[in-house]
Structures are given as structure tokens and as C-alpha cells.
């Protein structure tokens, strides 16, 4: 008997599959990606009652095994690759007790693959309230499975589910429907050609070859003619699929008629009453706007306290390191390179966590689907889709998952436009840049009870959104892609978000952000520190003598002298030389060469900007200072004014609002569109546009 078994968790979206996963695995889970593709992969483990260890994979939510998206592809591949080491020994289907019919559809498909299946009926705690009764014995017999009534919300039934999983060897493997009834000739021949394979598996393999980017069923089965069984046209195959679907539902309906009772008179009004308000043609929009306003105001004001704390912490950590370690290269690298660089990103943890918190609450509660519903008309005018709202809103956290969430847009043109414009929305990596610059150039005033800095931030978010919509409109006019417009969006019931789920999402995503950004920032701050503290010429090496000679006649205090030496050194370091080389290009935008360096480094990832500035400015600077104070005191060498004055600040804000500065997003766009053409177009048009806008803004304001 194997020590460890593979368990695959499969279910429709909105059935609480992830809650069941969290209940089973607790903190024993990790989030990763499938190799080569960017579909999120969640894995965890738990101990079963009989001592076995279960390795549990949470597969993306899907309605069916007929592939129409990359997410579904993952599920199907997982179930078809029998020889893979990940192939499940047992599948757990998570179903919503209120929506059993549609959930059982997927169940019958998986059952027909002849894999042992356990049915976890979730949200069983509402059964009494909703007047639902379920004849479990009958269901288990007819479906050939074990049923565990669970409530992931209340944490009940999980032990029974574990027991059902542990006893997976006792589960029968039988089919639910007879495929041969659909087209006896075709299926008999198919079976003859591959006598050792299960029929449904063969059928799936022959119909799943689906090009989901263009929604065309590419010539399904050229190879099949060779094997001597009848070829069917695409239309015929579609008709067979419909017959199969009808057959499955007939099977399910018969079972539900006998074993599932629902007292309709039992209260269900909550949903329709809430829908009436949230989908109202006036109130719906007012509420949506208010929710967004509250979200962004609170992100700004709630997180300022922990942020100040973290900023101060890293400042004193740097100071402590400098004074404690013996002077030398290591001391410099740590106190001037790595600590300020890492501090520059850690400071944004509170804000990013809040952002993920709000987004996951909006999604979990079922509200996001209502936004899709009220926004479709508006979005369609610009060549988008109601579902584009999800990428555009979750893009405020990170463009990468946002671009991926465009997958459930059925229409290829609308999906492509959504992918192309999503990077305009203000992602959490822009937040650090915005916050620090807003703090520097926007006065701390209140207008009508609202914080002016918070309003500026909200304006920047709105700007990103307007820009996304505007470019969608342009793209819609330019792009000549014919694709069938088709839209279907599930309207899930309202749910109180589960604290545990929200917490896990926040922790996982924040960790992900910090670790990924942290790696880049660590590398870049080391490189930057090296380039800033070394120089090629005698000017750099003999900085002290040169400055001493130049300032002989001036009565400088020791401190002023040190500063003068440090800035002379920086100017003649490698980084200084590089910065001066690019200065002609960026001076018209109001940036000095130091900002230019930060700009260059942030082409890999925007969040590097603050860390880079922190590193550049801390080299040779002995004071214990927070990042903000350092930047506030900086003087532009050529104008003699503050480096971060109002025009420069605005110009920078606009540049970061529009420029495409994220390699990971470009990579994801390449993946999702399957061509380098689109990411390159994004890179050049967005950055070019950013340059022009910042140029105009600076020249007008200065």
C-alpha cells in the first residue's frame, strides 16, 4: 500500500472548493504555478484516519470537461494523463447543495473516466433553512460514490470526508451514462480502435483539441481516419456533444426527482432583495462608486501607521548595522545597499495587504458578479466586456493575475483588448511610487472632510481606469478581428466572506508579492550599491583631496565637507556616469540624473523605484533618515531647486501612471496572447505615451 495518495479537488466555481481545501490542509499548503503556464496551482497535504498521507491538489474551478479555456485545460490534462505521477488516485468533487444539478453534471463526466470519486456536498449547514432534503443512500447507490455532507464555513463533516477519501479503494468505478446510445456506430468503432482505453476518455481526447484563443474547434481528428473508424464533421460532433449533455441531465434529473426535495416556500428572498438594490439602474452605480471610494480612502489612511513604523524600523536597522559592523565593504553593502533597498519594498506590505483584502472580499461575497452585470453595457461600448471589470479591478492589485482572469471572457477580441489595456490600471507596484511622491509634493490638507493626498491617489486610480477605457475604445476601432460575441456569467448567491479564506488569500498574495519583488530588488540594490560606490576615474578615487582642494577657501564644517565629498564621489561613480549619460533624454521631463537611474532600474519592475532611490541616496550618507526625509531634502544639481518639487512630482506621477514597466506582465501577456507582438506593442505605445504626457505636464507646470 502506498504511503501517499494523490487527491484532486474539482468543482464548479463558487462552490466553496477553496474553503474545503483550506479546511483539509490548513496551513499545510503552498501556491505555485503549473510549469510553463501561469495557471495558479494550489497544493497541500493532510493526514487521513488510516495513517495515509493525502497530497491534495486544488484544481481551477470548471463547469465541464469540454475545454474552452486554459483553466479547464489544466483540469482535463490532470485527469487524462494516466501515467503522470500527479494522476489522482481519487477525485473529490465539491458541490454546492443548492446547485446540485449543475454540479452533478461535472460529477458524471469525471465518474465516466472511471476514477474513484467522492462527492463532498458543501454548504450543508443551510439545508434546513432552505428546506432541502437529500436521500444520501439513494444518491450513493445511483452515483456509485460516497457522499460527505460538509460545511467548510462551520468546519463540519471534514472528518467524514477524510474517511471517505481514505477508503477510496472501496469506491466502485462505473459509468453513469452509455455513450453508445448517442451514436452506436461511432463509439463501437472508437472502442475497437483502442480496446484498452475507457470510452469516455477516448471521446474527450478526440473533442478536447480546442483552440480556446480563437474559439474555433481545430480539425478534431485527422488521425482517426487512419485507425479506420468513422470520421464525423465538426457539426456532427457538436450534435453528439449536445446529446451527451442531454443524456447526462436526464440521468441527473431522474435522480434528483427521487432523492432531492426542496421546499420552494422556504425563504430565498435575501438574494432577490439584494439584487434589486445592487443591480438598480441608479443605486447600483451609486453603491459601486461608494464602495470604490471607501476602499481607496481606507487603503490610504489605514495603512499609514504601520507604514511609518516599518519605515522607521528599517532606518534604525540600517543605522544600527552601520555602527555595529566593522567598517568596510560588507558594512557598506548591508547598510547602504541591501537594507534600504529591502526597506523600500517592505514598507508597502500594509497597503498591498489591504488591497488584496478588499478584492478578495468583493469576490468572495458574490458582489463582483453584480458589477459585471451592471457594467457590461458600458464596457461593450468600448469594445470590452462586463467581465473586463474583474481584470480592471483586480489589476489594482497586480496586472499578472488580472491578465489571467481575462480568460473567462468568451469573445477573443474583447479578451485581447482587455489584456492589452489592463496594465493601465494602477497596480500595487505603482503604489509605492505614488505614495512617496504624493507625500512629497501634495500638501497635507483636507477638503470637504476628505484627505487631499488620498484624493490625489484616487484621482490617479481613476486616471489609470479612464486611460484603460480610452485605449480600449481606440483598439476597438483599429483591430479588425471577427469573433462571435458570446457572453455568459454565473450569478452566484451572496455569501458572507469566510474569514479564513480571505486571510489565506491576503497572506499568500502578499507573501508572493514581497518574495518576488524582494528578489529583484535585492539583486538590483546590490548592483546599484556597487555601481554607486565604485568609479573608474581618478576623480572618484581621489575625491577627498579634490574636494578639499576646491573648498579650501570656504569655511566648511566637517559635516558639510563630508557631504560634498560624498556627492562628488557619487557623481563620478559608475552609476553617476550612466545617469549623466541619459540625463539629456529625461531633463525635459524634469528629472535629474538620480531619478533617471531609478527610472532605468524600474523598467524591470516599477516597485524598484523607491528602493533604488533609497539606495542611491543612502550611499555616503551617514544620518539615520527615513526614505521620505531623504528625498525631501534632495536638491536638483542643475536647477538648484528641490529635486522633488511640484512639476517634477506631477511629471513622475504621470510617467508611472502610463508607462509599461513590468517584465513579468509582458511575459504573461505573451503567454496569454501566444505572440510577442502584443506585449511589444504594449511596451512601446504605453511608454512612448507616458513620455509625451510627462513632457507636456512638466513644461506647462514649471
Amino acid at each position: 500500500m502506498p504511503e501517499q495518495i494523490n487527491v484532486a479537488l474539482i468543482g464548479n466555481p463558487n462552490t466553496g472548493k477553496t474553503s474545503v481545501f483550506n479546511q483539509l490542509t490548513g496551513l499545510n499548503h503552498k501556491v505555485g504555478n503549473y510549469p510553463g503556464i501561469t495557471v495558479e496551482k494550489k497544493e497541500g497535504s493532510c493526514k487521513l484516519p488510516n495513517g495515509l498521507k493525502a497530497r491534495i491538489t486544488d484544481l481551477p474551478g470548471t463547469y465541464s470537461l469540454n475545454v474552452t479555456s486554459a483553466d479547464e485545460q489544466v483540469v482535463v490534462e490532470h485527469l487524462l494523463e494516466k501515467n503522470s505521477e500527479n494522476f489522482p488516485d481519487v477525485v473529490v468533487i465539491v458541490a454546492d447543495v443548492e446547485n446540485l444539478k449543475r454540479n452533478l453534471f461535472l460529477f458524471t463526466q469525471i465518474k465516466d473516466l472511471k476514477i474513484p470519486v467522492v462527492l463532498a456536498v458543501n454548504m450543508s449547514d443551510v439545508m434546513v433553512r432552505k428546506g432541502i432534503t437529500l436521500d444520501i443512500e439513494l444518491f450513493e447507490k445511483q452515483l456509485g460514490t460516497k457522499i460527505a455532507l460538509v460545511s467548510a464555513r462551520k468546519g463540519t463533516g471534514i472528518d467524514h470526508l477524510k474517511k471517505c477519501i481514505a477508503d477510496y479503494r472501496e469506491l466502485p468505478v462505473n459509468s453513469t451514462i452509455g455513450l453508445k446510445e448517442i451514436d452506436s456506430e461511432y463509439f463501437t468503432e472508437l472502442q475497437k480502435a483502442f480496446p484498452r482505453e475507457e470510452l469516455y476518455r477516448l471521446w474527450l481526447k478526440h473533442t478536447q483539441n480546442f483552440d480556446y484563443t480563437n474559439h474555433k474547434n481545430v480539425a478534431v481528428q485527422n488521425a482517426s481516419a487512419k485507425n479506420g473508424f468513422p470520421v464525423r464533421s465538426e457539426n456532427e460532433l457538436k450534435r453528439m456533444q449536445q446529446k451527451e449533455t442531454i443524456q447526462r441531465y436526464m440521468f441527473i434529473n431522474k435522480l434528483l426527482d427521487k432523492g432531492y426535495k426542496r421546499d420552494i416556500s422556504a425563504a430565498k428572498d435575501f438574494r432577490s432583495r439584494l439584487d434589486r438594490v445592487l443591480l438598480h439602474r441608479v443605486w447600483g452605480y451609486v453603491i459601486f462608486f461608494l464602495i470604490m471610494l471607501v476602499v481607496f480612502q481606507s487603503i490610504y489612511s489605514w495603512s499609514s501607521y504601520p507604514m511609518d513604523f516599518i519605515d522607521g524600523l528599517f532606518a534604525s536597522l540600517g543605522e544600527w548595522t552601520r555602527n555595529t559592523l566593522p567598517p568596510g565593504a560588507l558594512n557598506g553593502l548591508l547598510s547602504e545597499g541591501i537594507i534600504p533597498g529591502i526597506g523600500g519594498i517592505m514598507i508597502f506590505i500594509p497597503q498591498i495587504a489591504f488591497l488584496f483584502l478588499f478584492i478578495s472580499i468583493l469576490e468572495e461575497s458574490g458582489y463582483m458578479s453584480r458589477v459585471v452585470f451592471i457594467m457590461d453595457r458600458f464596457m461593450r461600448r468600448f469594445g470590452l466586456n462586463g467581465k473586463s471589470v474583474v481584470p480592471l479591478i483586480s489589476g489594482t492589485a497586480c496586472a499578472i493575475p488580472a491578465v489571467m482572469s481575462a480568460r473567462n471572457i468568451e469573445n477573443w477580441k474583447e479578451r485581447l483588448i482587455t489584456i492589452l489595456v489592463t496594465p493601465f490600471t494602477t497596480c500595487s507596484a505603482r503604489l509605492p511610487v505614488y505614495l512617496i511622491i504624493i507625500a512629497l509634493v501634495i500638501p497635507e490638507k483636507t477638503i470637504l472632510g476628505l484627505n487631499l493626498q488620498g484624493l490625489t491617489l484616487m484621482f490617479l486610480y481613476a486616471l489609470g481606469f479612464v486611460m484603460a477605457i480610452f485605449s480600449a475604445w481606440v483598439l476597438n476601432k483599429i483591430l479588425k478581428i471577427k469573433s462571435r460575441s458570446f457572453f455568459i456569467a454565473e450569478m452566484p448567491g451572496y455569501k458572507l466572506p469566510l474569514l479564513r479564506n480571505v486571510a489565506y488569500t491576503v497572506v499568500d498574495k502578499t507573501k508572493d508579492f514581497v518574495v518576488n519583488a524582494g528578489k529583484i530588488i535585492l539583486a538590483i540594490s546590490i548592483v546599484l550599491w556597487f555601481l554607486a560606490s565604485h568609479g573608474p576615474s581618478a576623480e572618484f578615487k581621489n575625491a577627498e583631496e579634490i574636494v578639499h582642494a576646491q573648498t579650501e577657501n570656504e569655511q566648511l564644517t566637517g559635516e558639510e565637507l563630508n557631504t560634498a565629498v560624498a556627492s562628488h564621489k557619487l557623481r563620478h561613480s559608475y552609476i553617476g556616469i550612466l545617469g549623466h549619460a541619459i540625463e539629456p533624454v529625461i531633463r525635459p521631463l524634469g528629472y535629474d540624473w538620480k531619478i533617471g537611474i531609478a527610472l532605468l532600474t524600474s523598467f524591470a519592475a516599477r516597485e524598484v523605484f523607491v528602493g533604488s532611490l533609497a539606495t542611491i541616496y543612502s550611499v555616503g550618507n551617514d544620518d539615520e533618515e527615513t526614505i521620505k526625509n531623504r528625498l525631501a531634502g534632495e536638491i536638483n544639481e542643475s536647477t538648484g531647486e528641490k529635486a522633488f518639487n511640484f512639476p517634477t512630482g506631477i511629471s513622475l506621477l504621470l510617467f508611472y501612471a502610463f508607462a509599461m514597466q513590468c517584465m513579468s506582465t509582458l511575459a504573461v501577456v505573451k503567454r496569454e496572447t501566444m505572440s510577442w507582438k502584443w506585449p511589444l506593442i504594449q511596451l512601446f505605445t504605453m511608454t512612448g505615451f507616458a513620455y509625451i504626457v510627462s513632457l507636456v505636464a512638466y513644461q506647462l507646470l514649471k
Partner: protein
Amino acid sequence: MKMNKYTIAQLKRGEKGIIGDFSTDVVPVKLQEMGCLPGSEVQLIQFSPFNDLLYLNISGSFFAIRKETASLIEIANAG
């Protein structure tokens, strides 16, 4: 009642009907898998503002489709 096609798109708010036969090439597989099949009961829950999406309950599944898709699916007998 008019003699021409009576489809889901013509339902009034709250009205129910039984889905009639439809040709497989007009109704996407996805929709069928959600339970939109000949013989299923359909109820129109709500229109979206500006009348573009229809929020339906088809035999216990709640989802929204666009009006042009809905106008391809005939109602067998209104009621």
C-alpha cells in the same frame, strides 16, 4: 400572443417558460452545459440597466447572458 418566435428575450421580468428545441450551432455548448436545454424551465429574474443582459434562472442555475443570445432560444409554451 404574437405568432412569430417567442424567445427568452421576450420574457417579462419574473415570467417563466419552458425552453423549446433549438439548433446546436446557435446555442454555445457552454450554455447547454449550464443546463440550458430543450425542456428546461427558464425564469427571467432581471434585466441589466440599459437592457443588455438578461439575468436568468434556468432550472436552478443563475446566470446572465446577452440579449442576442437569448433571442435565439425559443420558448415552447409561455407560462
